[in-house]
């Protein structure tokens, strides 16, 4: 937001809200919509709304990051389970298949966690669906499988992350914030 002005460019040549250069006699900034020729009250109200949008964007970004971290957490949990079950019974005939399946899950969630930093919406939707499928399959053998505070928390975190990823796109378009 803040920008130092050179002698060549006067302060009134720049938007007070987004610091974009004003190249003509516009009444509104064409980058952020700031009322350049509005009353002081209108300008203050705009700045307040824009500041609120920036705060909301920071909050949404944090939620998206936490949901992405959930994917990393799941990856770590599956790796840990693989190590534990292998150490408990390394000579069991089916142990390698079980460990291999857990290692595949570890890899998938690790890749989705990494992808969530670039494309949060796609990776969080994919991670949520995979996790829900695993829980539904688990419920076939044990209907109370899903009744765990951790499992519900993971699903809620991912859903909040997806919603935040959707909302931040709208916020970027409406208020031109990053």
């Amino acid at each position, binding site marked *: 937001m803040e920008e130092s002005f050179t002698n060549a460019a006067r302060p009134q040549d720049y938007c007070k809200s987004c610091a974009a250069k004003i*190249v*003509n*006699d*516009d*009444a*509104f*900034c*064409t*980058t*952020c*919509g700031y*009322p350049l020729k509005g009353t002081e009250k209108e300008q203050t109200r705009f700045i307040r709304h824009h500041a609120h949008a920036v705060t909301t964007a920071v909050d949404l970004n944090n939620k998206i990051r936490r949901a992405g971290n959930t994917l990393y957490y799941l990856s770590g949990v599956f790796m840990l389970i693989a190590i534990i079950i292998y150490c408990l019974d390394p000579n069991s005939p089916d142990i390698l*298949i079980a460990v*291999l*399946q857990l290692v*595949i899950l570890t890899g998938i969630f690790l890749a989705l966690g990494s992808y969530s930093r670039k*494309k949060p*919406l*796609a990776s969080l*939707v*994919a991670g949520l*669906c*995979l996790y*829900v*499928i695993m829980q*539904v*399959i688990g419920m*076939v053998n044990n209907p109370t499988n899903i009744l765990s505070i951790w499992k519900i928390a993971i699903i809620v975190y991912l859903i909040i992350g*997806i*919603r935040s990823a*959707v*909302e931040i*796109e*709208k916020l970027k*378009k*409406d208020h*031109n914030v990053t």
Partner: protein
Amino acid sequence: MITNDNREAAEKTCIKCGNAIASNKQFCGACGSRQLHSADAVVENKWSRIKQAGLFYGLFIVLCASSNFIDDFQTVRWSLFFEVALATTSVGFFTFNWTENNKLLTWPDFSFQKLCAYCALAVAASVFVHYSVGWLNFTMYSRQQENFTFLKGNILGEFLLIFFTAATPALFEELGFRGYLLQNLLKVADVAQALFVTSFLFAIIHMSFVSLFWLIPFAWLLGAVRLKENTLWYGVFMHFCFNLTACLFMLSGL
């Protein structure tokens, strides 16, 4: 309002006051209104679209998990019930967004050579998958995995096998995933993300670890063909040829 410097970039007018605005500007300099593009207007209901897609996929998860993992449902009658339920889900959601999906059922620029080429590609992919999955199954489980074992001894067994594994999935999975789901996600995310999500969700709904390595690229290929050709029909035929080849391998016992 527009200077000589940027007059060349003035390619649009304000949606509210009609003032000329440079095409790269998001707000009108005269009235201050935000310039919504047609794509942005659709974006306003993104969250509703995601919830609708979630309902579609949730129904698929419940139906597929029930038919795959509950022993009591491993009968011809129950399999028919689940096929009808999955088909109804696909058709229902596809027709719910009929105005934006119906153009996918047309077949613009039909080319017989192109159809044959796509089908040949699908058959080649199926042959590769058959032998690689066979090797993987034997390596991991020391046996070949068998599907639809309940059809053995059934007088219509071969017909039902082709019906369950080749015909209905080709039509209704394409209608559901490359039709409804991909089209819906294209309104929510960019093309790369929509294609990735559709392919990934299609792969994991088959609920098989071994099959993931070929299902994701195959689903991606079907999605890419659907986007390139702007019709579902090439994908339906590719999917049918792929599944029919796998089916014939099963019947021949190779």
